[in-house]
């Protein structure tokens, strides 16, 4: 099914190539976009339909030990959303059944992403110790090309290197770590705070607070990792989950972090959770204006929003103290897992409700960030699935961005207690265009990820394409693509999932100075419980994405 194919007469939204609703054919052969195909090629009439590159999710949690711990915690969600195997086309291998909910099973995750027109997904937080599990789960997550970010920055070995001022060795160490884990990018969560929670610290940590040593601070960790990503020419900037997630006044921390890294490429993730000002009485209020203003003025900064959507969610993060505090305040069930020498993990099921003041504020803050952002290429779409809500809520989010009347109706229903001074409450008239939606869901994330062949439909690009039937209700349009093509294979036809090929693994393998291995091996022998030689995942099926 990778035969040549011509999509005829669709309205093409391909922002990377400057196409904004231009009626054009899109040709596919050998899994790539080509200029033309022979007349004998299969033709699919998509006249009147909207053609976009396949969706690219820059920040999700879909594969690995922590995700699986969340799955295990949610039997009631799974029982309410059993998913029979989709009926694929005759001759295709039988598909797999599974369970849905906010944390679906692996096969179901792949089918559902593809069913929304997403063809590339990144898991944003994998402890390298558990990398093998993530690869196995991604192997069982069909259709989408996928990779993951490696958790670093709260790890004992990096801390040793920073304490001793050995930044050069730190750079080679993270290169080794990325290669060993088969990861795609560096991810830091609550720099310093994850390890300090494991030491019993429950309070805030400032950027310049020493972490047991004057030379070791969150700022030093961020400096080291951002410099390493640059020096190693990684395709994606260091992916940063700032300190103080969820706390009133944390927008100051987020801004200080951005300023600390000023001039250097950095990606700030789920910034909605990091954009709260503090009112005089200590309660949260929107800090979106200040944060967006900074982002608008600093082209080196990129972000994904981490929109909260009303409904069930599962909070799942390496930021263990956040989950502890949520557990204590909510009384819901709680998982904490401390992961040796590297990181942590916390999980609490959650629900965002319109009538809850904090949830309403979070919903509003996320929308403000989208609607105030001047450059959609740098402020892209995520719900931090499943933290802010499921990826299945993306179509609804797209409607909220595109349809002011609908958004204002929704706004009337939410609890307004914390919305004083909110830009959205004051009235934001912006409506995203289809072109802007294509940017925040495809072209932008692909560019931020350094994936030159994704998020665009130019000749030579991966033939990952989604075709939607326009609908006045954009959430219907985006939830039910008519066609989805992945690597040239028509996986969704006439709205039905018909094929489920394996996706590719997206990973990098930056070179490192081999002389770092002897002391690293020695560290493993003294402190690790996994042998140094058993730690790397070894060769992967797909070639690494180039780093130069």
């Amino acid at each position, binding site marked *: 099914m990778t035969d040549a194919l011509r999509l005829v007469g669709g309205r093409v939204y391909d922002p990377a190539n400057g196409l904004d609703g231009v009626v054009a054919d899109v040709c596919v052969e050998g899994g790539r976009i080509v200029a033309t195909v022979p007349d004998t090629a299969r033709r699919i009439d998509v006249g009147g339909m909207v053609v976009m590159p396949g969706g690219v999710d820059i920040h999700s949690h879909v594969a690995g*030990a922590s995700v*699986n*711990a969340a*799955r*295990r*915690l*949610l*039997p009631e969600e*799974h*029982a309410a959303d*059993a*998913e*029979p*195997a989709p009926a694929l086309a005759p001759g295709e*291998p*039988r598909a*797999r*059944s*599974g*369970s849905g*909910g906010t944390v*679906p*099973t*692996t*096969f179901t995750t792949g089918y559902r992403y593809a069913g929304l027109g997403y063809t590339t997904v990144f898991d944003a937080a994998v402890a390298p*110790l*558990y990398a*093998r*599990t993530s690869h*196995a*789960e991604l192997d*069982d997550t069909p259709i989408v090309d996928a990779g993951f970010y490696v958790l670093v920055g709260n790890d*004992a070995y990096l801390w040793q290197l920073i304490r001793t001022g050995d930044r050069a060795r730190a750079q080679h160490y993270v290169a080794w770590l990325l290669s060993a884990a088969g990861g795609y990018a560096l991810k830091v969560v609550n720099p310093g705070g994850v390890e300090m*929670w*494991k*030491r*019993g610290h429950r309070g805030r940590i400032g950027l310049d607070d020493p972490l047991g040593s004057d030379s070791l601070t969150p700022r030093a960790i961020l400096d080291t990792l951002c410099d390493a990503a640059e020096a190693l020419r990684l395709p994606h900037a260091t992916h940063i989950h700032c300190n103080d997630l969820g706390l009133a006044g944390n927008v100051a921390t987020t801004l200080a972090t951005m300023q600390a890294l000023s001039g250097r490429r950095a990606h700030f993730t789920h910034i909605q959770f990091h954009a709260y000002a503090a009112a005089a009485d200590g309660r949260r209020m929107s800090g979106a204006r200040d944060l967006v203003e900074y982002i608008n003025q600093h082209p080196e900064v990129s972000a994904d929003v981490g929109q909260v959507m009303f409904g069930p969610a599962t909070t799942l993060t390496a930021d263990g103290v956040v989950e*502890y505090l949520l*557990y204590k305040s909510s009384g819901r*069930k*709680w*998982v*904490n*897992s*401390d*992961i*040796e*020498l590297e990181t942590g993990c916390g*999980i*609490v099921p959650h629900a965002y409700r319109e009538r809850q003041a904090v949830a309403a504020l979070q919903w509003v803050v996320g929308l403000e960030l989208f609607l105030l952002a001047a450059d959609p290429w740098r402020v892209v779409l995520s719900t931090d699935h499943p933290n802010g809500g499921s990826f299945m809520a993306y179509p609804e989010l797209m409607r909220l961005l595109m349809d002011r009347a609908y958004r204002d109706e929704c706004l009337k229903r939410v609890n307004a207690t914390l919305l004083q001074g909110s830009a959205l409450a004051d009235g934001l008239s912006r409506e995203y265009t289809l072109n802007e939606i294509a940017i925040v869901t495809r072209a932008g994330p692909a560019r931020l990820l350094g994936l030159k062949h994704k998020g665009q439909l130019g000749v030579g690009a991966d033939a990952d394409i989604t075709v939607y039937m326009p609908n006045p209700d954009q959430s219907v349009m985006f939830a039910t693509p008519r066609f989805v093509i992945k690597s040239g294979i028509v996986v969704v036809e006439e709205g039905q999932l018909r094929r489920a090929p394996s996706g590719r693994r997206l990973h990098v393998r930056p070179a490192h100075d081999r002389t770092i291995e002897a002391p690293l091996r020695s560290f493993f022998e*003294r*402190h*690790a*419980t*996994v*042998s140094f*030689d*058993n730690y790397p995942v*070894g060769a992967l099926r797909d070639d690494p994405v180039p780093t130069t």
Partner: protein
Amino acid sequence: MPTVDRVEEHVTCLGCGCACDDIDISIHAGRIVDAGRACALGAAWFGDGSAPDRSLVDGLDAGVDASLAAIAELLRRARHPLIFLAPGTSCEVQRLVVGLADLCRAALDNVSSSTVFHSLLASQEIGRATATLGEVRNRADTVVMWDVDAARYPRLAERYAIEPIGLDVPNGRHGRRVISVTVRANTWPGADHHVPVPPGDEVAAVEVLAALLTGTTPRTGEGPAWAVASGLADLLLQGRYVAVLSDAEPSARTAGPPPASGRGAALWRLSQALNDRTRGAVIALRAGGNRTGAESVMTAHAGYPMAVDFAGGAPRYRPHDGTASTWLSRGEVDAALVVGDASALGPDLLARISPAASAVIGPGATAGPLAKGRAAIDTARAGVHESGTALRLDEVPLPLRGFLSGPPSAVDLLAQLTALIR
């Protein structure tokens, strides 16, 4: 020392759930002659690397293809088959087995439903605060061996919990307070504190302890449990990081009454309570053979760690509606395929499997308890003859390497079987 042809280093052992990956295997003439650093359980698990390599149909030698065909026929003809993931399988095999169960609309279970049933359900209802073994090694200054028999986890002390010098425990054993709580097991040798708890008071003692740690009022009034708990609470609150290691499968032992069903829930509540005024975790110790892998893979594919039924075309969780053993006894399933080491199954389960409607694929299958069934096929043992992955009891994945030639690959056989049924 016998002659050694070669040594395989950093080999992972599945003798117990600790899955030590530092074993040096010496090989001579195609046989294991030494398992360096392995404990007695590990040495027994590796053996000499020899393994039966037969395939049977109705107890008689037959080719692998004929045996696979017989199993395929058994599954195809069954109204509702049971597929049982026994210990001794790699995660790669487990992934194929869940797919096979989905394809056959089978009931699917593993040993967790008979060994850690209540604890697993409790962890789903309450959550848990846990940690990897390396956290214990590097951070725990207070280690509670909660009814752990040292003989079941021989290297736990040396490698993970008590002796090692840790990053935050630079004085190793001298920097740790070790508390042995004894309910049924022998007391932990060399502990600093020995706390006997009558089996009937165990759950109450844990519940009171959790309450005392969080400063809430215990539901249980004064009594033996209270005395135990208050003494323990004082000790635990002096710790920076408290690791409670508890044998999650104590019923595997013959001595003593089985633990109360509320034990698992009480321990998980304790795990959470450890984190209000100090930090801590409960680590559930598991026996060998990649049991954790079976739970993990079933969860990843089906959404549930045990007791799954694909009969309706999608996974359904049935822990409260019986597990493999009761499905067999009620006649809900009319055929059984065991994948893995059938000798690790409990006698109750084995007694309920009808030879005429059963088959087994796994290491030592033709020499095991289900060899007389419809078909039996010996497979490679993952980690000796076949490569793959296993999960340690804390779900840390470790590589298994095949370093000896042996029976056919279990992965290949399961893939062939799936293709036959398709």
